[in-house]
């Protein structure tokens, strides 16, 4: 018997079937309910109507997706760099870690509803406040994952490297950093799901364009169908970003698949 060749992708597709089925049936029930109950589309538009709106307003949606994507990417890039830079500093200086970590925890307790308008007030209606808010929301899971990941390094590997005469930097680069990668990806997956939502929320509070603005305007003109159209786009963006991280993880953590397959 030969299971080897189609193994991964084949299994992946088969595993995906229940998820697709449940999503499709949820939309089907929603569509059915709207049609049978005769509920007003101003209250609850059917999925088919939302889909129609996406097609009808594709130019508007596209024009407003671009700024959201920009904010998401810029914010996430900033967040990734800050998280990595901080994690290195904290790993090399345990005292700084004890001093600063509580501040990072507090930064995660701030209610976004209160902070977002202030950030917009301070930094204006341009890209900057969105980038900052996306970064604020997404850096913490990655930072914690990295710091925990470094700490989870096998002490025997570190002893071994020390016996070889390795410097602190060499140990970090060859042992602690790679040890943290599985943890980092766990954090990254959490972060990435917050990124688009954070960008949209920042736009909602104050912006010239973006999916957040589409949602705000559609809500104000009693267009739940258009609100949901923008929501569908936003979900799709998050799913795509999530898929990219999963792909990246598969490449970077190839060695783990080997282990898992045994």
């Amino acid at each position, binding site marked *: 018997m030969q299971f080897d060749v189609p193994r991964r992708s084949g299994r992946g597709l088969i595993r995906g079937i229940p998820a697709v089925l449940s999503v499709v049936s949820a939309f089907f029930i929603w569509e059915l309910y709207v049609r049978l109950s005769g509920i007003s589309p101003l209250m609850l538009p059917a999925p088919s109507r939302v889909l129609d709106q996406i097609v009808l307003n594709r130019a508007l949606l596209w024009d407003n997706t671009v700024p959201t994507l920009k904010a998401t990417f810029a914010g996430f890039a900033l967040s990734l760099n800050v998280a990595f830079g901080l994690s290195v500093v904290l790993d090399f200086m345990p005292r700084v870690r004890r001093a600063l970590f509580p501040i990072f925890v507090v930064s995660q307790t701030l209610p976004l509803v209160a902070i977002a308008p202030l950030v917009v007030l301070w930094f204006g209606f341009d890209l900057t406040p969105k980038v900052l808010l996306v970064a604020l929301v997404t850096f913490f899971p990655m930072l914690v994952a990295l710091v925990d990941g470094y700490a989870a390094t*096998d002490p*025997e*590997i570190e*002893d*071994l*490297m*020390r*016996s*070889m*005469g*390795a410097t602190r930097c*060499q140990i970090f680069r*060859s*042992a602690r950093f*790679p*040890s943290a*990668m599985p943890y980092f990806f766990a954090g990254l997956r959490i972060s990435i799901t917050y990124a688009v939502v954070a960008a949209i929320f920042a736009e909602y509070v104050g912006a010239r364009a973006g999916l957040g603005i589409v949602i705000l305007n559609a809500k104000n003109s009693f267009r739940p169908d258009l609100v949901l159209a923008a929501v569908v786009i936003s979900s799709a963006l998050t799913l795509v970003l999530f898929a990219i991280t999963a792909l990246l993880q598969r490449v970077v*953590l190839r*060695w*783990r698949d*080997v*282990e898992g397959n*045994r």
Partner: protein
Amino acid sequence: MSVLDMRNVSLTIGGTAILDDISLHLAEGEFVSILGPSGAGKSTIFRLLTGAVLHDSGTITCNGQPLATNQHGFGFMPQRDALMPWRRIIDNLTLGLEVQGIRRKDARAHVTPLLADFGLDGFTDHYPAQLSGGMRQRAALLRTIAQNRPVLLLDEPFGALDALTRTQMQAWFEKRWRTARWTTLLVTHDVREAVALSDRIYVLSRRPARVTAEVHVPAPRPRLGRPVSADAHAIEAQLLEILLNQTGESL
């Protein structure tokens, strides 16, 4: 001249005396074992030698120089293999050379001719998880050898293996050692292993560890893969008695 000379070394960690007045030496090409009960502080001697902890009193010299200025005269093989799971075997093998700043290409060229003797030919692109316990142990040993250090420190290298693999590995190791004659310090709690591989054996007491006996093993080599000689048998019995007597009171 002794490659390694420890004199009257004592160590206390957090108020607990670990090593008490340990003296031992190791000559070029010699195979010496440190035999003692579990938890006696055998591995701590290696931690001293590799610079992970500092001794309180006594002197340690390596080729006549004090240890502090010659910290990296040792190739250390930890108890578990400590292979990096994210590195392919070849990159694990060259780790020590990489740390020394040798370029990857040169490091690989240095390791490659040794692969066959270590039974790792054709496995260089595998990850450690894809290898059997015995192969991983051989890879860990090759990683240690490849560093070209004057002294090998082996910390219970076969302890984690199942009995059958351990016997095979010991015989394989004896063969390799007979051709290469690495200057070796082995830590073990396995009497038979110590007698089969060593020229001399230091017996350690329970914590705080002191040297309670120094035993020469004059039996001819090879000793493994054939019935245990009468000499070796007598030494095994002698060592076992020393170990049992010193642990007897705590039972």
